[in-house]
Protein backbone atom coordinates (compact mmCIF):
# COMPACT_ATOMS: atom_id res chain seq x y z
CA UNK A 1 0.00 0.00 0.00
CA UNK A 2 1.45 3.36 -0.96
CA UNK A 3 1.79 5.84 1.86
CA UNK A 4 -0.45 8.82 1.31
CA UNK A 5 -0.03 10.88 4.39
CA UNK A 6 1.26 13.72 2.32
CA UNK A 7 -1.65 15.86 1.09
CA UNK A 8 0.38 16.89 -1.95
CA UNK A 9 0.67 13.28 -3.00
CA UNK A 10 -3.00 12.55 -2.38
CA UNK A 11 -3.98 15.56 -4.40
CA UNK A 12 -1.79 14.42 -7.26
CA UNK A 13 -3.41 11.02 -7.32
CA UNK A 14 -6.87 12.56 -7.45
CA UNK A 15 -5.89 15.06 -10.13
CA UNK A 16 -4.28 12.34 -12.18
CA UNK A 17 -7.40 10.15 -12.10
CA UNK A 18 -9.59 13.19 -12.75
CA UNK A 19 -7.62 14.35 -15.77
CA UNK A 20 -6.89 10.89 -17.11
CA UNK A 21 -9.72 8.70 -15.86
CA UNK A 22 -9.04 4.98 -16.39
CA UNK A 23 -11.54 2.66 -18.05
CA UNK A 24 -13.42 5.72 -19.15
CA UNK A 25 -15.31 4.51 -22.15
CA UNK A 26 -18.44 2.45 -22.28
CA UNK A 27 -18.78 -0.62 -24.42
CA UNK A 28 -21.70 -0.59 -26.85
CA UNK A 29 -24.20 -3.38 -27.24
CA UNK A 30 -22.25 -5.98 -25.35
CA UNK A 31 -24.76 -8.16 -23.57
CA UNK A 32 -22.14 -9.54 -21.22
CA UNK A 33 -22.00 -6.20 -19.42
CA UNK A 34 -24.48 -5.10 -16.80
CA UNK A 35 -24.97 -1.35 -16.71
CA UNK A 36 -26.33 1.11 -14.16
CA UNK A 37 -26.94 4.82 -14.37
CA UNK A 38 -26.20 6.77 -11.22
CA UNK A 39 -27.78 10.16 -11.02
CA UNK A 40 -27.54 11.66 -7.61
CA UNK A 41 -30.40 13.58 -6.09
CA UNK A 42 -28.16 15.80 -4.02
CA UNK A 43 -25.25 16.34 -6.35
CA UNK A 44 -25.01 16.81 -10.08
CA UNK A 45 -22.83 13.86 -10.94
CA UNK A 46 -24.38 11.63 -13.53
CA UNK A 47 -22.42 8.57 -14.52
CA UNK A 48 -22.99 5.23 -16.15
CA UNK A 49 -21.04 2.23 -14.89
CA UNK A 50 -20.72 -1.09 -16.70
CA UNK A 51 -19.23 -4.33 -15.49
CA UNK A 52 -18.70 -7.70 -17.05
CA UNK A 53 -18.74 -10.43 -14.44
CA UNK A 54 -18.01 -13.99 -15.39
CA UNK A 55 -17.07 -17.08 -13.43
CA UNK A 56 -17.53 -15.11 -10.24
CA UNK A 57 -14.80 -12.76 -11.31
CA UNK A 58 -15.02 -9.14 -12.35
CA UNK A 59 -13.59 -9.28 -15.82
CA UNK A 60 -14.03 -5.64 -16.72
CA UNK A 61 -15.40 -2.34 -15.40
CA UNK A 62 -16.05 0.81 -17.39
CA UNK A 63 -17.65 4.16 -16.75
CA UNK A 64 -18.53 7.43 -18.39
CA UNK A 65 -20.60 10.50 -17.71
CA UNK A 66 -20.39 13.98 -16.38
CA UNK A 67 -19.02 14.31 -12.92
CA UNK A 68 -16.88 16.33 -10.56
CA UNK A 69 -13.25 15.59 -9.75
CA UNK A 70 -14.07 13.60 -6.65
CA UNK A 71 -16.62 11.41 -8.36
CA UNK A 72 -14.54 10.89 -11.48
CA UNK A 73 -11.33 10.09 -9.61
CA UNK A 74 -12.97 7.82 -7.06
CA UNK A 75 -14.75 5.89 -9.76
CA UNK A 76 -11.63 5.63 -11.85
CA UNK A 77 -9.68 4.27 -8.87
CA UNK A 78 -12.51 1.87 -8.14
CA UNK A 79 -12.44 0.44 -11.65
CA UNK A 80 -8.74 -0.26 -11.40
CA UNK A 81 -8.96 -1.69 -7.93
CA UNK A 82 -11.85 -4.08 -8.48
CA UNK A 83 -11.05 -5.33 -11.95
CA UNK A 84 -9.86 -8.91 -11.80
CA UNK A 85 -11.11 -9.45 -8.26
CA UNK A 86 -13.60 -12.13 -7.34
CA UNK A 87 -17.08 -10.95 -6.45
CA UNK A 88 -16.45 -11.78 -2.79
CA UNK A 89 -13.19 -9.83 -2.73
CA UNK A 90 -14.83 -6.90 -4.45
CA UNK A 91 -17.62 -6.84 -1.91
CA UNK A 92 -15.13 -6.83 0.94
CA UNK A 93 -13.16 -3.98 -0.60
CA UNK A 94 -16.31 -1.93 -1.16
CA UNK A 95 -17.25 -2.49 2.47
CA UNK A 96 -13.86 -1.28 3.64
CA UNK A 97 -14.11 1.77 1.42
CA UNK A 98 -17.50 2.65 2.88
CA UNK A 99 -16.13 2.14 6.36
CA UNK A 100 -13.37 4.60 5.59
CA UNK A 101 -15.75 7.17 4.12
CA UNK A 102 -18.18 6.92 7.04
CA UNK A 103 -15.37 7.11 9.60
CA UNK A 104 -15.74 3.57 10.84
CA UNK A 105 -12.70 1.36 11.48
CA UNK A 106 -11.35 0.06 8.17
CA UNK A 107 -8.48 -1.89 6.71
CA UNK A 108 -6.28 0.47 4.66
CA UNK A 109 -4.36 -2.46 3.20
CA UNK A 110 -7.05 -3.49 0.75
CA UNK A 111 -7.85 0.03 -0.43
CA UNK A 112 -4.61 0.94 -2.11
CA UNK A 113 -4.90 4.31 -3.87
CA UNK A 114 -8.51 4.67 -2.78
CA UNK A 115 -7.35 5.85 0.61
CA UNK A 116 -6.76 9.29 -0.87
CA UNK A 117 -10.46 9.80 -0.10
CA UNK A 118 -10.04 9.28 3.61
CA UNK A 119 -10.73 12.95 4.34
CA UNK A 120 -14.06 13.03 2.58
CA UNK A 121 -15.96 13.39 5.87
CA UNK A 122 -14.48 16.86 6.28
CA UNK A 123 -16.64 17.90 3.34
CA UNK A 124 -19.62 15.79 4.21
CA UNK A 125 -21.53 17.04 1.20
CA UNK A 126 -18.98 15.29 -1.02
CA UNK A 127 -19.63 11.83 0.39
CA UNK A 128 -22.17 11.33 -2.36
CA UNK A 129 -19.55 12.11 -5.00
CA UNK A 130 -16.89 9.88 -3.48
CA UNK A 131 -19.23 6.90 -3.28
CA UNK A 132 -21.32 7.20 -6.42
CA UNK A 133 -19.20 4.92 -8.59
CA UNK A 134 -18.68 2.51 -5.74
CA UNK A 135 -22.39 2.27 -5.10
CA UNK A 136 -22.93 1.67 -8.79
CA UNK A 137 -20.60 -1.30 -8.62
CA UNK A 138 -22.40 -2.60 -5.56
CA UNK A 139 -25.67 -2.44 -7.46
CA UNK A 140 -24.25 -4.34 -10.37
CA UNK A 141 -22.80 -7.01 -8.13
CA UNK A 142 -26.16 -7.37 -6.40
CA UNK A 143 -28.02 -7.19 -9.70
CA UNK A 144 -30.06 -4.19 -8.52
CA UNK A 145 -29.66 -2.22 -11.68
CA UNK A 146 -33.34 -1.45 -12.11
CA UNK A 147 -33.96 1.96 -10.47
CA UNK A 148 -32.63 5.14 -11.97
CA UNK A 149 -31.66 6.53 -8.63
CA UNK A 150 -28.74 6.01 -6.32
CA UNK A 151 -28.96 5.69 -2.58
Amino acid sequence: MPSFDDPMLMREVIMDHYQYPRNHELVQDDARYEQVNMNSSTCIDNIDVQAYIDQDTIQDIRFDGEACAICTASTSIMTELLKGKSVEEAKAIIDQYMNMIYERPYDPEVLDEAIVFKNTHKQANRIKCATLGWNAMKKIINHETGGDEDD
Partner: protein
Amino acid sequence: MDIEKIRQDFPMLQGKTMQGKPLIYLDNGATTFKPKPVIDEIVAYLSDYTANAHRGDYDLSYVVDTKYEQVRADVAKLINAPNPKEIVFTYGATDSLNLIAEGYAKTHLGQGDEILICVAEHAANTLPWFKVAREVGAQVNYIDLDETGRVQMEVVKRAVNDHTKIIALAHVTNVLGHVLPVKEICDYAHERGIIVVIDGAQSVPHMPVDVQDLDMDFLVFSAHKMCGPTGVGVLYGKYDLLKETTPTRLGGGSNSRYNSCGVVSLKNPPEKFEAGTPNIEGVVGLGAAVRYLMAIGMDQIAAYEEELRAYAVKRMQEVDLVEIYNADAKMGPIAFNIKNVFSQDAASLFNKYGIAVRAGQHCAKILDEYLKVSTTVRASFYFYNTKEEIDAFVEVCKKGDDFLDAFF
Protein backbone atom coordinates in the same frame (compact mmCIF):
# COMPACT_ATOMS: atom_id res chain seq x y z
CA MET B 1 -46.85 9.41 33.18
CA ASP B 2 -46.62 12.63 35.12
CA ILE B 3 -49.24 14.90 33.56
CA GLU B 4 -48.26 17.94 35.58
CA LYS B 5 -44.72 17.61 34.36
CA ILE B 6 -45.85 17.05 30.80
CA ARG B 7 -48.04 20.16 30.94
CA GLN B 8 -44.95 22.19 31.78
CA ASP B 9 -43.66 21.39 28.28
CA PHE B 10 -46.55 23.19 26.59
CA PRO B 11 -46.49 27.00 26.45
CA MET B 12 -50.19 26.99 25.60
CA LEU B 13 -50.88 25.35 28.96
CA GLN B 14 -49.07 28.07 30.92
CA GLY B 15 -51.63 30.48 32.27
CA LYS B 16 -53.45 31.24 29.01
CA THR B 17 -56.99 32.53 29.35
CA MET B 18 -60.07 32.82 27.17
CA GLN B 19 -62.88 35.25 28.04
CA GLY B 20 -60.92 35.92 31.21
CA LYS B 21 -61.13 32.28 32.32
CA PRO B 22 -58.27 29.77 32.39
CA LEU B 23 -58.15 28.16 28.96
CA ILE B 24 -59.33 24.55 28.80
CA TYR B 25 -58.61 23.17 25.35
CA LEU B 26 -60.83 20.26 24.33
CA ASP B 27 -60.55 20.64 20.57
CA ASN B 28 -57.60 18.34 20.07
CA GLY B 29 -59.31 16.61 17.18
CA ALA B 30 -58.90 19.85 15.22
CA THR B 31 -55.31 20.50 16.18
CA THR B 32 -53.07 20.00 19.20
CA PHE B 33 -50.77 22.21 21.24
CA LYS B 34 -47.01 22.06 20.66
CA PRO B 35 -44.42 21.18 23.31
CA LYS B 36 -41.22 23.16 23.74
CA PRO B 37 -38.94 20.64 21.96
CA VAL B 38 -41.04 21.02 18.81
CA ILE B 39 -41.02 24.81 18.95
CA ASP B 40 -37.30 24.78 19.68
CA GLU B 41 -36.54 22.59 16.67
CA ILE B 42 -38.52 24.89 14.40
CA VAL B 43 -36.79 27.94 15.82
CA ALA B 44 -33.44 26.19 15.40
CA TYR B 45 -34.13 25.69 11.70
CA LEU B 46 -35.21 29.31 11.32
CA SER B 47 -32.35 30.74 13.39
CA ASP B 48 -29.43 28.36 13.34
CA TYR B 49 -29.43 26.19 10.28
CA THR B 50 -31.53 27.79 7.56
CA ALA B 51 -30.88 26.42 4.07
CA ASN B 52 -32.81 24.55 1.44
CA ALA B 53 -32.95 20.74 1.53
CA HIS B 54 -31.62 18.33 -1.08
CA ARG B 55 -29.33 20.88 -2.59
CA GLY B 56 -26.26 20.19 -0.56
CA ASP B 57 -23.23 21.96 -1.95
CA TYR B 58 -22.12 23.33 1.40
CA ASP B 59 -22.09 22.17 4.98
CA LEU B 60 -25.16 24.13 6.03
CA SER B 61 -27.35 22.47 3.44
CA TYR B 62 -25.84 19.12 4.35
CA VAL B 63 -27.00 19.67 7.93
CA VAL B 64 -30.52 20.38 6.67
CA ASP B 65 -30.49 17.28 4.47
CA THR B 66 -29.34 15.09 7.30
CA LYS B 67 -31.94 16.40 9.74
CA TYR B 68 -34.66 16.15 7.13
CA GLU B 69 -33.86 12.54 6.27
CA GLN B 70 -33.52 11.65 9.94
CA VAL B 71 -37.19 12.48 10.38
CA ARG B 72 -38.09 9.83 7.81
CA ALA B 73 -36.32 7.32 10.01
CA ASP B 74 -38.05 8.66 13.12
CA VAL B 75 -41.49 8.44 11.54
CA ALA B 76 -40.73 4.97 10.19
CA LYS B 77 -39.87 3.93 13.74
CA LEU B 78 -43.08 5.42 15.15
CA ILE B 79 -45.30 3.36 12.83
CA ASN B 80 -42.85 0.49 12.48
CA ALA B 81 -42.44 0.92 8.73
CA PRO B 82 -39.80 -1.49 7.42
CA ASN B 83 -38.15 1.13 5.20
CA PRO B 84 -37.81 4.90 5.72
CA LYS B 85 -38.23 5.30 1.96
CA GLU B 86 -41.85 4.33 2.47
CA ILE B 87 -42.38 7.60 4.35
CA VAL B 88 -43.43 10.40 2.01
CA PHE B 89 -43.70 13.90 3.42
CA THR B 90 -46.81 15.69 2.24
CA TYR B 91 -48.54 18.87 3.37
CA GLY B 92 -51.08 17.07 5.55
CA ALA B 93 -53.50 14.17 5.73
CA THR B 94 -55.73 15.87 3.16
CA ASP B 95 -52.84 16.22 0.76
CA SER B 96 -51.88 12.59 1.34
CA LEU B 97 -55.38 11.29 0.63
CA ASN B 98 -55.65 13.37 -2.53
CA LEU B 99 -52.31 11.97 -3.60
CA ILE B 100 -53.47 8.38 -3.18
CA ALA B 101 -56.72 9.09 -5.02
CA GLU B 102 -55.09 10.98 -7.90
CA GLY B 103 -51.81 9.15 -8.04
CA TYR B 104 -52.87 5.60 -7.33
CA ALA B 105 -56.62 5.12 -7.69
CA LYS B 106 -56.93 7.12 -10.86
CA THR B 107 -54.36 5.02 -12.68
CA HIS B 108 -55.49 1.69 -11.25
CA LEU B 109 -59.29 1.89 -11.28
CA GLY B 110 -61.62 1.85 -14.22
CA GLN B 111 -65.22 1.63 -15.31
CA GLY B 112 -67.35 -0.32 -12.87
CA ASP B 113 -64.75 -0.60 -10.12
CA GLU B 114 -65.75 0.19 -6.58
CA ILE B 115 -64.31 2.17 -3.69
CA LEU B 116 -65.77 1.41 -0.27
CA ILE B 117 -65.91 4.05 2.46
CA CYS B 118 -68.35 4.73 5.30
CA VAL B 119 -70.53 7.72 6.15
CA ALA B 120 -68.43 8.65 9.17
CA GLU B 121 -65.43 9.54 7.02
CA HIS B 122 -63.92 13.00 7.05
CA ALA B 123 -64.41 15.09 3.91
CA ALA B 124 -60.75 14.47 3.09
CA ASN B 125 -61.46 10.74 2.89
CA THR B 126 -64.62 11.20 0.86
CA LEU B 127 -64.35 13.98 -1.70
CA PRO B 128 -61.15 12.79 -3.43
CA TRP B 129 -62.81 9.40 -3.96
CA PHE B 130 -65.95 10.99 -5.41
CA LYS B 131 -63.77 12.90 -7.85
CA VAL B 132 -61.69 9.95 -8.97
CA ALA B 133 -64.73 7.74 -9.23
CA ARG B 134 -66.45 10.28 -11.46
CA GLU B 135 -63.38 10.59 -13.65
CA VAL B 136 -62.76 6.88 -14.20
CA GLY B 137 -66.34 5.67 -14.09
CA ALA B 138 -66.00 3.89 -10.76
CA GLN B 139 -68.46 3.90 -7.86
CA VAL B 140 -68.13 5.05 -4.27
CA ASN B 141 -70.22 2.82 -2.04
CA TYR B 142 -70.76 2.73 1.70
CA ILE B 143 -70.08 0.17 4.37
CA ASP B 144 -72.98 0.47 6.83
CA LEU B 145 -72.33 1.38 10.42
CA ASP B 146 -73.94 -0.70 13.15
CA GLU B 147 -76.31 0.93 15.61
CA THR B 148 -73.42 2.11 17.80
CA GLY B 149 -71.68 3.70 14.82
CA ARG B 150 -69.07 0.96 14.33
CA VAL B 151 -67.75 -0.61 11.18
CA GLN B 152 -68.19 -4.32 11.95
CA MET B 153 -66.10 -6.95 10.23
CA GLU B 154 -69.21 -8.89 9.15
CA VAL B 155 -70.61 -5.82 7.43
CA VAL B 156 -67.33 -5.28 5.62
CA LYS B 157 -67.48 -8.85 4.37
CA ARG B 158 -71.02 -8.35 3.15
CA ALA B 159 -70.13 -5.09 1.44
CA VAL B 160 -67.06 -6.36 -0.41
CA ASN B 161 -67.77 -7.72 -3.87
CA ASP B 162 -65.98 -8.50 -7.09
CA HIS B 163 -65.87 -4.86 -8.10
CA THR B 164 -64.27 -3.62 -4.91
CA LYS B 165 -60.76 -2.35 -5.54
CA ILE B 166 -60.12 0.02 -2.66
CA ILE B 167 -61.36 0.22 0.91
CA ALA B 168 -60.67 3.61 2.49
CA LEU B 169 -61.56 4.05 6.14
CA ALA B 170 -60.51 6.03 9.17
CA HIS B 171 -58.66 4.07 11.83
CA VAL B 172 -60.53 6.21 14.35
CA THR B 173 -63.16 8.57 12.93
CA ASN B 174 -63.11 12.18 13.95
CA VAL B 175 -66.67 12.22 15.27
CA LEU B 176 -67.54 8.74 16.49
CA GLY B 177 -64.13 7.56 17.56
CA HIS B 178 -64.48 3.81 17.31
CA VAL B 179 -61.34 1.83 16.53
CA LEU B 180 -61.52 0.07 13.17
CA PRO B 181 -60.54 -3.63 13.00
CA VAL B 182 -57.78 -2.74 10.53
CA LYS B 183 -55.91 -6.00 10.65
CA GLU B 184 -58.96 -8.12 9.96
CA ILE B 185 -60.05 -5.85 7.15
CA CYS B 186 -56.60 -5.97 5.55
CA ASP B 187 -56.45 -9.74 5.77
CA TYR B 188 -59.82 -10.09 4.15
CA ALA B 189 -59.12 -7.44 1.53
CA HIS B 190 -55.71 -8.71 0.56
CA GLU B 191 -57.05 -12.18 -0.12
CA ARG B 192 -59.17 -10.46 -2.75
CA GLY B 193 -56.50 -8.15 -4.13
CA ILE B 194 -58.15 -5.10 -2.58
CA ILE B 195 -56.01 -2.15 -1.49
CA VAL B 196 -56.68 -0.76 2.00
CA VAL B 197 -56.18 2.95 2.67
CA ILE B 198 -56.24 3.95 6.32
CA ASP B 199 -56.87 7.52 7.46
CA GLY B 200 -54.78 7.64 10.63
CA ALA B 201 -55.30 11.35 11.35
CA GLN B 202 -57.09 10.51 14.61
CA SER B 203 -55.28 7.28 15.49
CA VAL B 204 -51.55 7.78 14.98
CA PRO B 205 -51.46 10.69 17.48
CA HIS B 206 -53.22 8.70 20.17
CA MET B 207 -52.16 5.06 20.12
CA PRO B 208 -49.49 2.68 18.85
CA VAL B 209 -49.97 2.00 15.14
CA ASP B 210 -47.84 -0.74 13.61
CA VAL B 211 -48.08 -0.81 9.82
CA GLN B 212 -46.41 -4.21 9.58
CA ASP B 213 -48.72 -5.82 12.07
CA LEU B 214 -51.88 -4.16 10.72
CA ASP B 215 -50.66 -4.56 7.15
CA MET B 216 -52.54 -1.64 5.58
CA ASP B 217 -51.35 -0.60 2.13
CA PHE B 218 -51.45 3.15 2.69
CA LEU B 219 -51.64 5.17 5.91
CA VAL B 220 -52.00 8.94 6.17
CA PHE B 221 -51.77 11.40 9.04
CA SER B 222 -51.03 15.04 9.88
CA ALA B 223 -48.26 16.40 12.11
CA HIS B 224 -50.38 19.14 13.63
CA LYS B 225 -52.72 16.67 15.34
CA MET B 226 -49.79 15.02 17.13
CA CYS B 227 -47.92 17.94 18.72
CA GLY B 228 -46.26 18.91 15.44
CA PRO B 229 -46.58 21.94 13.18
CA THR B 230 -49.24 22.55 10.53
CA GLY B 231 -48.61 22.17 6.81
CA VAL B 232 -46.89 18.82 7.02
CA GLY B 233 -48.21 15.29 6.93
CA VAL B 234 -47.20 11.79 6.07
CA LEU B 235 -48.12 9.30 3.42
CA TYR B 236 -46.92 5.82 4.27
CA GLY B 237 -47.25 3.30 1.48
CA LYS B 238 -45.83 -0.12 0.79
CA TYR B 239 -42.84 0.50 -1.40
CA ASP B 240 -44.12 -1.37 -4.42
CA LEU B 241 -47.35 0.60 -4.31
CA LEU B 242 -45.51 3.88 -3.99
CA LYS B 243 -43.56 2.93 -7.07
CA GLU B 244 -46.83 2.50 -8.94
CA THR B 245 -48.15 5.81 -7.66
CA THR B 246 -47.89 8.91 -9.86
CA PRO B 247 -46.91 12.17 -8.17
CA THR B 248 -49.47 14.95 -8.06
CA ARG B 249 -46.89 17.72 -8.11
CA LEU B 250 -43.96 18.02 -10.47
CA GLY B 251 -40.99 20.35 -10.14
CA GLY B 252 -37.53 20.64 -8.69
CA GLY B 253 -36.15 17.71 -6.74
CA SER B 254 -38.54 15.07 -8.02
CA ASN B 255 -37.09 14.48 -11.44
CA SER B 256 -33.63 13.24 -12.13
CA ARG B 257 -33.49 14.65 -15.63
CA TYR B 258 -35.51 15.80 -18.59
CA ASN B 259 -34.93 17.47 -21.90
CA SER B 260 -36.74 20.06 -23.96
CA CYS B 261 -38.73 17.42 -25.78
CA GLY B 262 -40.62 16.62 -22.62
CA VAL B 263 -38.92 13.35 -21.83
CA VAL B 264 -38.83 13.25 -18.05
CA SER B 265 -37.41 10.60 -15.80
CA LEU B 266 -38.71 10.64 -12.29
CA LYS B 267 -36.78 9.62 -9.21
CA ASN B 268 -37.85 6.78 -7.00
CA PRO B 269 -40.12 7.15 -3.96
CA PRO B 270 -40.15 9.08 -1.74
CA GLU B 271 -38.31 11.80 -3.68
CA LYS B 272 -40.55 11.65 -6.69
CA PHE B 273 -43.48 12.87 -4.59
CA GLU B 274 -41.63 15.73 -2.94
CA ALA B 275 -41.34 18.24 -5.76
CA GLY B 276 -40.36 21.78 -4.85
CA THR B 277 -39.06 23.09 -1.58
CA PRO B 278 -40.74 21.04 1.14
CA ASN B 279 -42.01 22.37 4.46
CA ILE B 280 -38.59 21.99 6.03
CA GLU B 281 -39.31 23.47 9.42
CA GLY B 282 -42.53 21.47 9.34
CA VAL B 283 -40.66 18.24 8.79
CA VAL B 284 -38.03 18.85 11.46
CA GLY B 285 -40.83 19.93 13.80
CA LEU B 286 -42.65 16.68 13.05
CA GLY B 287 -39.45 14.83 13.89
CA ALA B 288 -39.26 16.52 17.27
CA ALA B 289 -42.94 15.71 17.88
CA VAL B 290 -42.43 12.05 17.03
CA ARG B 291 -39.45 11.80 19.36
CA TYR B 292 -41.42 13.59 22.08
CA LEU B 293 -44.38 11.22 21.79
CA MET B 294 -42.16 8.14 21.69
CA ALA B 295 -40.31 9.28 24.78
CA ILE B 296 -43.63 9.35 26.64
CA GLY B 297 -44.71 6.11 24.98
CA MET B 298 -47.69 5.63 22.69
CA ASP B 299 -48.98 2.84 24.94
CA GLN B 300 -48.99 5.14 27.91
CA ILE B 301 -50.69 7.87 25.95
CA ALA B 302 -53.41 5.50 24.75
CA ALA B 303 -54.04 4.12 28.23
CA TYR B 304 -54.25 7.53 29.85
CA GLU B 305 -56.56 8.93 27.18
CA GLU B 306 -58.84 5.95 27.47
CA GLU B 307 -59.13 6.51 31.19
CA LEU B 308 -59.75 10.22 30.67
CA ARG B 309 -62.44 9.58 28.11
CA ALA B 310 -64.21 7.04 30.29
CA TYR B 311 -64.16 9.51 33.17
CA ALA B 312 -65.61 12.27 31.00
CA VAL B 313 -68.39 10.02 29.71
CA LYS B 314 -69.30 8.92 33.21
CA ARG B 315 -69.43 12.49 34.52
CA MET B 316 -71.40 13.73 31.51
CA GLN B 317 -73.92 10.92 31.86
CA GLU B 318 -74.75 12.28 35.28
CA VAL B 319 -76.08 15.42 33.61
CA ASP B 320 -79.61 14.99 32.30
CA LEU B 321 -79.26 17.82 29.82
CA VAL B 322 -76.49 16.04 27.95
CA GLU B 323 -77.05 13.61 25.11
CA ILE B 324 -73.96 11.61 24.08
CA TYR B 325 -73.85 9.91 20.69
CA ASN B 326 -70.83 7.68 21.15
CA ALA B 327 -70.60 6.91 24.86
CA ASP B 328 -69.20 3.42 24.35
CA ALA B 329 -66.32 4.27 21.98
CA LYS B 330 -62.99 3.55 23.60
CA MET B 331 -61.04 6.25 21.81
CA GLY B 332 -61.53 9.55 20.15
CA PRO B 333 -63.79 12.51 20.76
CA ILE B 334 -67.08 12.64 22.59
CA ALA B 335 -69.90 13.73 20.31
CA PHE B 336 -72.81 15.21 22.20
CA ASN B 337 -75.45 17.88 22.36
CA ILE B 338 -77.02 19.85 25.13
CA LYS B 339 -80.71 19.13 24.82
CA ASN B 340 -82.61 21.84 22.97
CA VAL B 341 -79.52 23.90 22.38
CA PHE B 342 -78.15 24.31 18.89
CA SER B 343 -74.55 23.06 18.90
CA GLN B 344 -73.09 26.40 17.93
CA ASP B 345 -74.91 28.16 20.75
CA ALA B 346 -73.54 25.51 23.11
CA ALA B 347 -70.01 26.07 21.87
CA SER B 348 -70.39 29.77 22.64
CA LEU B 349 -71.47 28.96 26.14
CA PHE B 350 -68.38 26.81 26.64
CA ASN B 351 -66.28 29.59 25.17
CA LYS B 352 -67.64 32.00 27.74
CA TYR B 353 -66.22 29.72 30.41
CA GLY B 354 -62.84 29.45 28.75
CA ILE B 355 -63.48 26.02 27.25
CA ALA B 356 -62.65 25.31 23.60
CA VAL B 357 -64.92 22.73 21.96
CA ARG B 358 -66.17 22.51 18.42
CA ALA B 359 -69.66 22.56 17.04
CA GLY B 360 -70.82 21.44 13.67
CA GLN B 361 -70.47 18.65 11.24
CA HIS B 362 -66.73 18.28 11.79
CA CYS B 363 -66.05 17.88 8.12
CA ALA B 364 -67.98 14.62 8.18
CA LYS B 365 -70.87 16.23 6.44
CA ILE B 366 -72.66 13.08 5.42
CA LEU B 367 -72.78 11.64 8.89
CA ASP B 368 -76.10 13.36 9.54
CA GLU B 369 -77.63 10.81 7.24
CA TYR B 370 -76.70 8.29 9.93
CA LEU B 371 -76.79 10.12 13.27
CA LYS B 372 -80.09 11.81 12.37
CA VAL B 373 -78.81 14.90 14.03
CA SER B 374 -77.19 17.36 11.76
CA THR B 375 -74.69 18.92 14.09
CA THR B 376 -73.03 18.00 17.35
CA VAL B 377 -70.66 19.44 19.90
CA ARG B 378 -67.35 17.65 19.99
CA ALA B 379 -64.98 17.47 22.92
CA SER B 380 -61.69 15.83 22.06
CA PHE B 381 -58.85 15.14 24.44
CA TYR B 382 -55.13 14.73 24.38
CA PHE B 383 -52.71 13.32 26.91
CA TYR B 384 -52.13 16.72 28.49
CA ASN B 385 -55.78 17.11 29.51
CA THR B 386 -56.74 16.41 33.11
CA LYS B 387 -59.70 15.20 35.11
CA GLU B 388 -59.90 18.64 36.68
CA GLU B 389 -60.42 20.14 33.24
CA ILE B 390 -63.16 17.63 32.60
CA ASP B 391 -64.82 18.53 35.88
CA ALA B 392 -64.88 22.18 34.84
CA PHE B 393 -66.25 21.18 31.45
CA VAL B 394 -69.04 19.13 33.02
CA GLU B 395 -70.02 22.08 35.20
CA VAL B 396 -70.65 24.09 32.05
CA CYS B 397 -72.67 21.24 30.54
CA LYS B 398 -75.03 21.72 33.45
CA LYS B 399 -75.59 25.36 32.54
CA GLY B 400 -76.83 24.42 29.10
CA ASP B 401 -80.26 25.93 29.61
CA ASP B 402 -78.78 29.35 30.05
CA PHE B 403 -76.94 29.21 26.78
CA LEU B 404 -77.71 32.81 25.92
CA ASP B 405 -75.64 33.80 28.94
CA ALA B 406 -72.67 33.73 26.63
CA PHE B 407 -74.18 36.61 24.82
CA PHE B 408 -74.51 39.10 27.63
